[in-house]
Structure formats: structure tokens, C-alpha cells
């Protein structure tokens, strides 16, 4: 079973946000999606999560079209960590994590739900926040709480489940300090060992190179490259996608590619189409 976008396109009014993108999230793999602002990364995520329907092509979870799944069955296999969440009410943190157990309402009991939620809090290093009010947390703490919530949704506690599950992360490290950036990506990597397929939209190319099994690069709504970090992260690719000159070296301990951007941005850099970016941010 895998989560796949098969030739998907997405258009809003006259703006074509994605053109014919084919991408597969396989269990056991961490796939990083890179690309400049307005490249269509978040749109791709919205299509893969079933939040929006593609205007062309199809998104499949296993053999079936994603939209043919019963919502709760889908939610037990496919979880999404949003970039930020507008939670206005002062829920205690532990209740926020417990919300992740909603799709298990018919398959679980409160004691099990609480145990799983607790284990997931442990996995994101946040048990000390359990009784705090969500509204009093910092941005990075909130991000980790939501990660725990999505893990609880996918039964990602200590016990292993017997079927593949898919986790979509939308810039999971944007609000985190260095230690927690690595905690989250190491956790994502660890989950791939538990039959998870993980897709992470990232901005930090070096973080992607360190943890991802495969990297997909989007630009102007098209999939430019998809492959291992070594295949994808080349001087030429970075130049053509971001318009930034760089040197690629070998990471001193892992040997994976490491990008060092050059200080002077080329003057002919073509910024993302402003119309595309405006429609995209809706």
C-alpha cells in the first residue's frame, strides 16, 4: 500500500497551481519535498491529504481513490501535521493530544486512548506539558503537541500497528529550535522503520539531505526532480530552481550532500510568479 499522486493537476480559476505531478509516498521511506515559495508544495499536501480534490489526475491511498475512503478509515491511516493551527479555546494539552484518537472512537476504549496519547507525548519529549493549557505554550511547543496528536491519530505509540500508515508534515521544523528540529526529523525517520510512509515539506535543504531517503523538488507547480539526495541536490539543480549559486560538499560525518550557498544572488533571479503566490496563499 502506498499514497500516490497520479498525474495530478490543480487549478484555481485561471491559475494552474500544479501541473501533472506524479509522486509516490512509500511505507518505510521519508520523502522530503523542497521548492521555492509558491512552488505548489502546500497545494500538493492539500491534495495528498484529501482536503482538496485534484482538477486532473487522481490521488490514491492503496488501490482506492483517496476520496472513496470512509473518512474515519482514511484518518487512521493518513495523518497531517499542519504548519500552524488556530486553536482558540484553552484546551489542556493532554486533551489536544486525545483529539487525535477521534477516528478510533469505534475501535478503542478511553483507557487505551489515554495510554497511546501519553506515549505519543513521550515521543515528542513533551510529557511535562501535559496539564498545561494549550494557549500558554510557545510556537515550538504547540508544534510538538500537534505532532503528538497526529501520532496518536495514527496509533504511533510504542506498540506497532500491522498496516502501513502515512504522515504528511507541512514544514514541521519551521518553529523549532535546533535540538527539536532534529528531534522531529529523527522521529520521522524512526517512524519509517515502523511501516510509516512520511512526506515532509521542508525549506531547509541540508536538513532534508540529512534525513530524507528521497527528495522531490517542485518549481512553478511542476515536479522538477525526484530521487536520492545525491541525485537531486546538485549545483545545477539549486541554480535552476532557486537561482542561487552554491557549492555542494560532503557532510563530514554522514557523507550526504551539504549545500553551501554563495553570498551573491544572481541578478537574473526570477522570483515566483506573484499571481501564483497570491492565489496559492488563500
Amino acid at each position, binding site marked *: 500500500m502506498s499514497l500516490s499522486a497520479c498525474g495530478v493537476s490543480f487549478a484555481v480559476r485561471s491559475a494552474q497551481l500544479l501541473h501533472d505531478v506524479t509522486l509516490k509516498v512509500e511505507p518505510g521511506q521519508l520523502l522530503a519535498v523542497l521548492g521555492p515559495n509558491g512552488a505548489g508544495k502546500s497545494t500538493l499536501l492539500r491534495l495528498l*491529504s484529501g482536503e482538496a480534490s485534484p482538477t486532473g489526475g487522481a490521488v490514491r491511498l492503496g488501490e482506492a481513490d483517496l476520496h472513496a475512503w470512509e473518512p474515519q478509515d482514511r484518518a487512521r491511516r493518513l495523518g497531517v501535521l499542519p504548519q500552524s493551527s488556530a486553536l482558540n479555546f484553552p484546551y489542556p494539552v493532554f486533551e489536544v493530544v486525545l*483529539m487525535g484518537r477521534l477516528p478510533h472512537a469505534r475501535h478503542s476504549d478511553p483507557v487505551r486512548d489515554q495510554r497511546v496519547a501519553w506515549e505519543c507525548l513521550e515521543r515528542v519529549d513533551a510529557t511535562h506539558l501535559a496539564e498545561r*493549557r494549550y494557549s500558554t505554550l510557545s510556537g515550538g511547543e504547540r508544534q510538538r503537541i500537534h505532532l503528538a496528536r497526529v501520532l496518536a491519530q495514527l496509533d504511533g505509540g510504542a506498540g506497532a500497528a500491522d498496516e502501513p500508515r502515512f504522515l504528511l508534515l507541512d514544514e514541521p521544523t519551521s518553529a523549532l529550535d535546533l535540538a527539536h528540529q532534529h528531534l522531529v526529523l529523527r522521529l520521522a525517520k524512526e517512524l519509517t522503520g515502523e511501516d510509516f510512509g512520511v512526506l515532509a515539506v521542508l525549506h531547509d535543504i541540508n536538513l532534508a539531505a540529512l534525513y530524507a531517503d528521497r527528495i522531490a523538488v517542485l518549481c512553478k507547480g511542476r515536479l522538477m526532480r525526484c530521487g536520492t539526495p545525491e541525485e537531486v541536490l546538485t549545483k545545477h539543480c539549486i541554480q535552476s530552481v532557486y537561482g542561487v549559486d552554491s557549492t555542494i560538499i560532503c557532510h563530514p560525518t554522514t557523507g550526504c550532500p551539504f549545500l553551501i550557498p554563495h553570498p551573491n544572488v544572481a541578478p537574473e533571479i526570477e522570483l515566483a510568479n506573484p499571481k501564483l503566490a497570491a492565489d496559492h496563499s488563500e
Partner: protein
Amino acid sequence: MSVTTLPRPAEATAGTAAPERLCAWAARERRKRAAVLGGLTLLLAALAMISVATGAVSVSPAELGAIFLGKLGLTTSVEASRVQEAVIWSIRLPRVVLGILAGATLAIGGAAIQGLFRNPLAEPGLIGTSSGAAMAAVIAIVAVTHLPFTLPAAAMSWIVSLAAFAGALAATFLVYRLSLVGGRTMVATMLLTGIAVNALAFSVVGLMMFLADDAQLRTIAFWNLGSLTPANWSSLAVVAPLMVIACVALPMMGRAMDALALGEAEAHHLGVAVQRVRFLTVLLVALSVGAAVSVTGVISFVGLVVPHLLRLAVGPNHRLLLPASALLGAALLVGADLLARTIAAPAELPLGVVTALLGAPYFLWLLIRERERGTLL
């Protein structure tokens, strides 16, 4: 586990402490739920009993018991007079029952709409339900006298109620439809549409008041301030089922509403059929609040304050908030009605005036206190 290599905050507990903390948390939640729901039920029962026993015709607790047992075919040593029995059975009891149902409906409707819009300022009034009812009722009050024939008073009150109910439904669904953009509900659009519909409705109310004669003005004023006086068993038989259905069905959507608090997209990711929950909630609130308002007139403060007050006291979890709102709303309305008809007896204050006079200063005090504590919202 990999996280153990990270420096952990000092207050993080060792592995063995976790289950104990978890058990304590779960036990505390269970106790809180039982205490809140039990306490509010007792409060409501006490207020209902006092309300039934209080009034121009005095009835002792023993006589009250005799009347209820008598209805069940049991005789007791205490005899209640026929007048007492008639007053209790056909005036006070339907009035208290209407108070309970209308209060519960308004408060649970407020809690549901606030949850749906993730906005503690929302209430059924904000999506057009109350103003639509008021507009239609006022039009009916003025238009009925322009008919070529005279209607009996009973028929007139039925027409006004029906118009109010239809107005509540029509205004709510107008707001709901206009805020549907490509199959998704835009919360900001919905609130703005609600404000526009409210403005339109109130301008029509103003226009009708301009056209109305003195007697109609009194009826309009009475209707706009709310009252439980119109309560009787035959009107209750019509509106009670709608209100009971809402009070039973809305708490069942508590978990979905908790998920909606995270955001529409997040609720979708959690497997909530967002559009269905939204449509059902708006439908249930429009039907039940429309039914309540069609009999009592506009009582606007309950739906806003009760859920807010409870959220500060018991937290935002909708599985507790929704039933607790229903109970506290019922208690508040029964208590306010008791005050309204005793404080200036034999005259009767308008109910909406009492709820606002009591509720608004308390609400302000609560807001000031919460602001000082920094726990607002």
C-alpha cells in the same frame, strides 16, 4: 526511545510516574464531569420546584406533592384545592417546562455555534436566527390587523409564532447558503453575512414599529423582550419535541466540535465529515432556537453568556460543555423568570430585561477578573 539522548526538562517525569499521572488525570476528569452535571441538575431541580410553588396562589410543598400524586391516581392525607391544582397544572408547570426547554435550547445552541465557528463571541443571534424570528414576528403582528376580517386572539398568537419560526429558519439558511463558497463554509463570510442580515432584520423591525399603532407597539415590545407567559400545554406539545431533539443530538457531536476547534482542515484530517457536522449543527440550532423564540420572544443574552461562563469554569471540552450549557441555561431562565414575576408582583418584568440585568454585570465582572488573571479565552 531516541528522545532520551536529548536533555530533558527538569519537570519531565521518569517512565514509571507516567501511568500514575495519567490515572490521576482521568479520575479528576471523571469527578469533574460528575460534579458539574450533578450539581447543575440539582440546581435546576431546586429552582424548578421553587418556581412551581411560588406565585399569587400559595401552595405548600405538601400540597404540591399531593397534586402530583393525585395526577398519578394516588390520594394523600393532604388535600389541595381545585384552584391550586388548576394554577399549578395549567399555568405554572407549563411555564417552568417552557423555561427549562427554552433556556437549555438557547444555551446549548450558543455553545454549539461558538464551537462551530471557533469564536467565543458567536451565538444564534449572530447567524440571523433571533433577528429573523423577530422580523417575521413583528411583520405578522402589524400585518394581521390589516386583514379584511378579525381573527380570534388565539389564532393571532399562533400566526405570530409560526411567522417567527419561519423567519428564524429562513434567515439562518440564507446566512448559511450565502457563506458556502465552492462547498466550503467561510467562517468570516458567514459572520459578516449574519451581521448584514441582522442589520436588515432590525431595520424592518424599526419600520414596522413606525407603522404600528399603540396596541401593536405594546405587543412588539413585549415580544422583543421575551416572556414565558404564553406557555401552555398545547403550544408546548408543538415546540417541545424540536427543543428536546436538539438538546439530545447536539451533545453527541461534542467530539467532532472539539476537532473543529483545531480548524476545518484539521478536523477533516481527523476523519470528521466537516460539512455534514456543520449543516446538522446549524439545522438543529435553527429548528430548536426558532421553536423556542417563536413562543417566548427574543431572549438574547443566555446563548452568549452561559457557554462562556462554563468554558471559564469547566474548560472548553464540548463533551462536557454542551450538556452543562443546557442545564445551566435552563436553570438561569427558570431563575430569571421566578425573579421577573415575583420582584414587582403582581406586575411582571420582561424576562429579557431580567436576564440582561443579571447577566451583563456578572459577565463584566467575570471578564475583568479573568483579564487580571490573564486567563481570558
